[in-house]
């Protein structure tokens, strides 16, 4: 049995761990609210852009000479997986879930005879993906240098991806990112970003719309922006997911620490009592012997 002093030390160390997890939980809860608000504020732009895309795509659809970003390179041999992970840990199974989804997609594509490369956003995905696909990581983007990744970071990522696409480094790009459902559930989802998938909901406008400069020029400028918006959305979702997962994980950790403290305190009191009883017996036995 551990000595009284050892037990006391353990109780104190668990107590300070609990303080840390509790603080992290409260910080995450406060940040979650902010991240959720930011994600909501970005929605109007995304939905408007999708609407404009829809009406334009309906016009250009069916033409063979559409922009490269829309019709693709004509092959689907080389795939790029853009995996969005968080930069910090302490958020439960979020990152391992994202990595699991990315690996699942990669395996499925490889089984179909395609080649797969990775583009990693965020720190936490690097090590586990590198372990399984040591030679497949093409590039990455570090978001840990800024406090909250915003539109500028999304634009930088999109620019790099588009440059890679134009240089012919890949044919199809998929985005693997967490989708924030609630503080308890964040599911990683995979969506195709390049070539830009034709919108499912095609808005038919009866009136004749005038375009300035021309439909194709507008579409050409719109498509990169659409990719950027997708990535921006993923970054915002990631932020909300990270805080949500962190809050839940830290809540559990705090509760577990509390249970451990209770257990250790009971053990500590028992051994203390046992020590007192032994001492008493020794004194009484000594007195009787006289």
């Amino acid at each position, binding site marked *: 049995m551990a000595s009284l002093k050892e037990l006391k030390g353990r109780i104190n160390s668990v107590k300070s761990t609990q303080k840390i997890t509790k603080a992290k939980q409260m910080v995450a809860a406060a940040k979650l609210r902010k991240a959720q608000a930011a994600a909501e504020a970005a929605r109007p732009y995304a939905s408007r852009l999708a609407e404009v895309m829809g009406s334009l795509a309906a016009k250009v659809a069916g033409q063979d000479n559409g922009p490269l970003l829309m019709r693709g390179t004509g092959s689907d041999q080389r795939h790029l997986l853009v995996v969005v992970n968080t930069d910090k840990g302490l958020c439960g199974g979020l990152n391992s879930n994202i990595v699991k989804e990315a690996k699942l997609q990669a395996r499925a594509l490889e089984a179909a005879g395609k080649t797969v490369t990775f583009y990693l956003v965020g720190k936490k995905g690097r090590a586990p993906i590198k372990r399984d696909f040591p030679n497949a990581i093409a590039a990455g983007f570090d978001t840990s240098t800024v406090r909250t990744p915003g539109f500028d970071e999304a634009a930088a990522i999109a620019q790099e991806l588009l440059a890679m696409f134009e240089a012919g480094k890949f044919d199809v790009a998929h985005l693997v990112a967490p989708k924030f459902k609630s503080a308890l559930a964040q599911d990683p989802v995979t969506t195709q970003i390049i070539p830009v998938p034709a919108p499912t909901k095609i808005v038919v406008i009866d009136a004749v*719309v005038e*375009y300035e400069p021309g439909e194709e*020029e507008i579409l050409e400028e719109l498509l990169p*922006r659409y990719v950027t918006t997708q990535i921006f959305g993923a970054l915002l979702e990631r932020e909300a997911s990270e805080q949500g997962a962190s809050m839940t994980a830290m809540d559990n950790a705090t509760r577990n620490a509390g249970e451990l403290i209770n257990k250790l305190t009971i053990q500590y009191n028992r051994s203390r009592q046992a020590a007192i009883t032994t001492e008493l017996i020794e004194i009484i036995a000594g007195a009787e012997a006289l």
Partner: protein
Amino acid sequence: MSLHFELVTPARLVRSEEVHMVVVPGTDGEFGVLEGHAPFMSTVKDGAIKVYKAAGAAPEEIKVQGGFAEVSAKGLTVLAEHVEG
């Protein structure tokens, strides 16, 4: 007798209001949008959007960078990448 004007950036919905007229700096030249304008779509260059709250009122200028303007039956929607102020 008013135009529904919306200005949206990736970060937030900046404006959503009823105005008299908006002058937008299009890539092929500035254009003014009043109520009942024909459906129209244009790219926007860096510059200032002038918002006239009422006829004859002094315009309010909003500096924008890069984006699109769409005029539909619903009104004018400007999607800008950056908005100053």
